[in-house]
């Protein structure tokens, strides 16, 4: 580690690699339940079937909520139709969207608003000819080191936007306007090596 105030990138990664959770000791859950019960904070004993733990739902996929509206797809379609306002030239930048410590998942009622919000942002990029591609990524990142799969306590990226910008300054400005930041997410910006 350098003797400086800020963490180095390697330090950040090392800290990020520390486990975020720990094993819950046997009996701890029952002790907490009992302590709640003795304080009158829990109702009577319920049967396991009283609260269905899983259910099947029909819902708008998060892909639509965050990256839908044909965002990245829109750019492809728009270029093909010649409707972009600028030629699609210039260096590429990859924006990776992460949940971040304060990321707020959209509830079902908010999902339409999220679609509109992200869609408006991406739509501006698309119309400017700057949106090259975008996809939602599924959960379940697998991290490999050498021949070993290691635990990844931090969530992987939720999706990406591949954009064109004049330089890193413009790319960062675009990222700063991404709705993901307003919802507590993180966005990384990185130039694609030409």
């Amino acid at each position: 580690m350098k003797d400086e105030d800020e963490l180095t990138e390697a330090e950040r990664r090392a800290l990020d690699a520390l486990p975020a959770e720990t094993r819950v000791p046997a009996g701890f859950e029952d002790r907490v339940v009992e302590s709640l019960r003795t304080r009158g904070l829990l109702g009577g004993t319920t049967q396991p079937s009283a609260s269905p733990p899983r259910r099947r739902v029909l819902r708008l996929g998060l892909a639509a909520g965050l990256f839908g509206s044909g965002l990245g797809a829109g750019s492809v379609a728009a270029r093909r139709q010649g409707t972009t306002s600028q030629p699609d030239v210039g260096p590429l930048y990859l924006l990776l969207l992460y949940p971040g410590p304060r990321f707020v998942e959209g509830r079902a009622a908010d999902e339409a608003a999220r679609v509109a919000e992200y869609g408006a942002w991406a739509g501006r990029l698309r119309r400017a000819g700057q949106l090259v591609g975008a996809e939602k990524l599924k959960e379940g990142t697998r991290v490999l080191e050498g021949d070993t799969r290691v635990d990844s306590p931090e969530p992987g990226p939720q999706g990406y936007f591949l954009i064109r910008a004049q330089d890193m300054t413009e790319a960062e400005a675009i990222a700063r306007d991404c709705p993901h930041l307003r919802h507590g997410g993180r966005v990384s910006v990185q130039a694609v090596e030409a």
Partner: protein
Amino acid sequence: MQPSRARSSLSSGEARLKEEEVEPADDELVRAFVASRAEEPFRLLFRRHTPALLRLGQRLLGGDAAAAEDAVQEAWIRAVTRLPEFRFESMLRTWLCGFVVNRCREVLRSRGATAPVTAELVSEPTAAPADTARALDLERAVLGLADGYRAVFVLHDLVGYTHHEIAERLEIQEGTSKSQLFLARRALRQRLGGRPVREDRHEG
């Protein structure tokens, strides 16, 4: 990206509606619990969040697993008492962590300057990553920090709080939080022998 897929996404919103089997979301469980005080939704919430709450408590309390259990238990009791007030303006996990931080702050203050540092946490890694030795060194070094340093370091560098949030939560000045973090990082680097903390990449 495949153009065919693009067309599909653009033209058919219905295609993105899909049936999934899902665990109830936090807000559903909270509402179910608040409405009924039933045990089942509480247990589901407990199982979902306690592993992270315990880890946070253990780190804030220097690896004292027993004290962390007590702190998390107390945090759940306080949180359950106030669950009807929770409006989901933040993530439930974040809100719950606040109760753990508060309780740990009280514990640390009651201990004064004589806080014991144990190795219980580092002796039981749960994840068993391939680079366990390096992770344990780092974890041990974090746990070995003085209480004030460690609390700020854990909240800022591991949990992601801002200095403003730390100041509010720990009831200290924001400037104190910044200086504690600076000193914590320096102490941590010294504890690790001045060697860079780097990722082992199994290079040859």
